[in-house]
């Protein structure tokens, strides 16, 4: 089960992140989770939003380079031990995680995972009883 993520190309120049967030704010789009990864040349902003399709359209209309992709969201208790355990299952099954980011609401932690094989994530989750959540569940957090 996957959820939609939005990736945005960010040139490394001051104020660009604010511009992008401003565009989304204008369109009443809520940000559930966000992470920025960057190199010396450029960065990529990754977002889970309240309406990914709409967010993509408004960014496109504002000539911002963006892309939608599928990621998986898991929930667990927000302790380091639980995190480690979750990741360990994937390593054990030989599934490499391209990147991961998370946020927490007190006791609960939410992990957003990007892997090369989302179907395999489902299988691993079933096997080890991991708690995959739907887009709807994530949005109501």
């Amino acid at each position: 089960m996957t959820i939609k993520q939005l990736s945005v190309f960010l040139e490394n120049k001051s104020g660009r992140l604010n511009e992008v967030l401003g565009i989304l704010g204008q369109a009443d789009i809520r940000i559930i989770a966000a992470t920025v990864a960057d190199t010396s040349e450029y960065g990529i902003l990754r977002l889970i939003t309240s309406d990914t399709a709409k967010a993509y359209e408004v960014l496109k209309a504002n000539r911002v380079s963006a892309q939608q992709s599928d990621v998986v969201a898991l929930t667990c208790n927000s302790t380091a031990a639980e995190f480690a355990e979750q990741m360990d299952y994937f390593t054990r099954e030989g599934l490499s995680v391209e990147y991961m980011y998370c946020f927490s609401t007190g006791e609960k932690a939410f992990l957003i995972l990007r892997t090369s094989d989302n179907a395999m994530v489902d299988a691993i989750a079933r096997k080890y009883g991991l708690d995959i959540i739907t887009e709807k569940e994530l949005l109501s957090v």
Partner: protein
Amino acid sequence: MDNLYFQPEIETMERSSLETLQLKRLKESIGTALRSPFYSTRLGKLGITPDSIRTLGDLRRLPFTTKEDLRSNYPFGLVAVPADRVVRLHSSSGTTGNPTVICHSQHDLECWAGRVARCLYMVGLRNTDVFQNTSGYGMFTGGLGFQYGAELLGALTVPAAAGNTVRQIKFIRDFGTTAIHAIPSYAFRLYEVMREMGISPRTDTRLTTLVIGAEPHTEAQRRKIEEAFGVKAYNSFGMSEMSGPGVAFECPCQNGLHLWEDCYIMEIIDPETLEPLPDGEVGELVLTTLDREAMPLIRYRTRDLTRIIPGECPCGRTHRRIDRIKGRSDDMFIVKGVNIFPMQIEKILMQFRELGTNYLITVDTVNSNDEVMVEVELGDLFTDDYSQLQRLTRDITRQLKDEILVTPKVRLVDRGTLPQETGKAVRVKDLRKNK
């Protein structure tokens, strides 16, 4: 059987006869030119007479004529016939200083129309065709130039002129237009509006041929136009100083433009050293008129960059071909002794589907070394994977190096960051102190 050539005896003339004709006409042209105030001084000072020219190679001993010469002798300093022989002039606007003016006699207009008719016939137009010209009329030579040429051919010629796209489309349908002359960007515009109106150029019109020119464009853009309209699109080359359209034109082989060598002598020179370049090498096109009497031009530096395509053309025409225009020599820059043209870089960038159409080339001195930086806008983000973005950057860099022989620094930038592609976007910024 329908003849392939409008003027077979000229178009397929043996090279040796063609060169004999060129030499004869060159001597006449110099004789005529010497009657103008400008050339009587410029050539007279050097003691040049028609008899100074024994072979075509002797032309190289004559000085170049530049746009600046036309400007500083504005308007009639190069006119070589009495006022009663001059029947028309065309002028091109100058952004700086005087405009340039080209004067024509009745003979000149007839020769010009003949060349245009020859071009249109070459790509299959006949007296039963309906030719719609979307050029601006008036001072701009693309209007009257094509009008008289298409009329001479016998085609029904619609002087639709520029603009009003909905009306153009109505004409295309009502008059059964089979051929259009348009600049490439306007051809795309026509197609867009047709689509909005629910008209298919393939099924709802009789179009077979598009003549495109006056604006540099790539092979990929031409194929796009052909695909959109379901027609053949042919590249046209001309300039007001050389009368207008009809200087060189593609034949059905669509591999280079035959330059009419009975009317012009062409040379390709290195724009820096001004030395002639062998066939096949890119440089500045220099033209000498051979059949113009009101205002002959000797070794005129066109500023257009192209090359002579070596070898014979399968169509049977013996007039040599030039390649599509690769840009202006003013845009050329030199890095580490290599001549680089923005069009070379553009051609490579356009091959990457991940990229947008805007780019900027910056040349600067870094640690006493000349460096080229190419910034290019991304299209829609195609990946959110760094390694792929890095691979893309590497691929672009490698292909550019193969083309320009210098390793550029490539930067992907966000859309909308660089100057817009419309109009005359600045493509090269040269920040070096010593160029």
